[in-house]
């Protein structure tokens, strides 16, 4: 049963990340996802210090606010200080992440939160950390509920704002002229990325969550030219890497999150070489 819980939790997080990541890579903002996943750290620590619990609503809110704040800082440095986007991203997220690292080390004694866990997560603990109601009923793994709720919120958000997100991604100036606020939808998307990153960080950590945001949609992008297909393939890849990653980790007796991302990387490489129309080797064979 615990294998099933771990795979299910990982799949749900990977689907959430992949759906948002599909928009990010088409906006050429994959690295903003990277930035946000790191920049939320001080938000997590501060919210944790204030509330004293993990997995709390306040914690997700605090982190989401910091994620949006980091997006704002990046845009500000880019537009007002005329810094290149990548330089603005690099300065912002490392600085905020460092702040988080200092906060953790200073309050290390009082805080049940260590850098290892923040960076790498530990999805193997999912089946142990149970949600027990006040009346004493055991409801199952806590992370599973968080993963499911995160996915529901993301699917609702993408369903409601699909047209706006799609149009502001493809042609922002046209979107602006028909009265759609490009910056509002940018911040909403970044808010969703922050929320998802924070929810997932306990399980997969701040570094590997970036891989979930980028690798499955990047693989799907090579396989199709239809956006709807890209979203579906991303979801399938999310489930496949969760299952294969889990069993790879069991076989190697290693980190599950690490194995999931390793499988995602291998899938990407295979796709890059053998995709039906765009694959490197497929094209060689076709022209030979």
């Amino acid at each position, binding site marked *: 049963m615990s294998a099933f819980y771990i795979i299910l939790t990982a799949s749900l997080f990977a689907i959430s990340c992949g759906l948002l990541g599909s928009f990010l890579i088409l906006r050429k903002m994959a690295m903003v996802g990277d930035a946000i996943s790191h920049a939320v750290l001080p938000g997590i620590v501060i919210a944790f210090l204030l509330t004293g619990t993990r997995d709390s609503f306040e914690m997700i809110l605090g982190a989401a606010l910091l994620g949006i704040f980091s997006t704002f800082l990046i845009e500000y440095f880019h537009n007002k200080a005329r810094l290149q986007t990548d330089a603005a991203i690099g300065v912002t997220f490392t600085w905020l992440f460092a702040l988080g690292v200092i906060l953790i080390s200073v309050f290390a004694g009082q805080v049940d939160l260590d850098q290892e866990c923040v960076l790498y997560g530990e999805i193997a603990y999912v089946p142990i950390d149970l949600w027990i109601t006040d009346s004493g009923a055991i409801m199952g793994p806590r992370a599973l509920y968080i993963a499911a709720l995160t996915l529901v919120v993301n699917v609702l958000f993408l369903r409601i704002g699909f*047209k*706006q997100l799609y149009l502001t*991604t*493809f042609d922002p100036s046209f979107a*602006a*002229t*028909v009265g759609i606020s490009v910056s509002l939808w940018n911040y909403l998307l970044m808010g969703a990325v922050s929320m998802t990153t924070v929810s997932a960080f306990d399980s997969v950590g701040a570094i590997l969550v970036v891989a979930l945001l980028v690798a499955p949609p990047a693989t799907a992008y090579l396989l199709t030219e239809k956006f709807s297909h890209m979203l579906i393939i991303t979801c399938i890849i999310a489930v496949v890497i969760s299952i294969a990653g889990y069993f790879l980790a069991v076989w190697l007796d290693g980190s599950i999150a690490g194995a999931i991302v390793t499988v995602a990387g291998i899938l990407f490489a295979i796709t890059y070489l053998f995709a039906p129309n765009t694959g490197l080797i497929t094209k060689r064979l076709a022209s030979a």
Partner: protein
Amino acid sequence: MKIEAKDPVVEIHDLTVSYQKKPVLWNIDATLPKGALIGIIGPNGAGKSTLIKSAMGLLPLASGYMRMFDQPLDKVRDRVSYVPQRESVDWDFPTSVLDVVLMGRYAKLGLIARPRKADKEMAINCLRKVGMEAFVNRQISQLSGGQQQRVFLARALAQEADLYFMDEPFAGVDAATEAAILAIMQEMTAQGKTVIVVHHDLQSAAEFFDWIMLLNMRLVASGPIDKVFNNQLLQETYGGKLTVLAEVGELVRKRQIPSREKY
């Protein structure tokens, strides 16, 4: 030289636009008539695209204001359509021709609604007008430059606006597409719609437009083509650049300077 339109659709009042505090458009003041095919003409860097981008609210104004249908833009957005330069979007984006044209319907759909069957039929109808009905389900990455421009025009038609701003719709398209686009524009103006086009080719400008704005950071002239499209005003618009180049060419010819060093 400036001639005021009798029945103005667009009024520009003392418009100044700056990039990083350096003005690129100075004190533009003009009125443009309803139902005309209007060309904005001028050399590179004259601020032609800047003018229509600021008209669409895409750039902040340093001073001045614009009115359309005697209203500020925000009140009449659903009557105004903008066609950006073709190069401004990523044509490798995973989307189909139909999806792009449907984007012209988004503003009318509101937040949650998906495009309905009527919207799709309308989009296909617009594609038929631009001669692209065979490409409805094609991915946009497979289109040629002229076909891309036709798709953008179809999206604008799907907006059912009364006033159109188009940024270089004739740039880099084949002759057949140029003729097709021009025919559609003429049909639109015959229906009382106003089409404002940024254009850089002087030769075709003389044939295409009813009304011309000559622009070179400031407004050189605005009026009916027979009144303002003359050598003197064109010289003033293209100013030094034409003459300097002509003189350099003359020097090269006279002194027989080779255009490349020979070894």
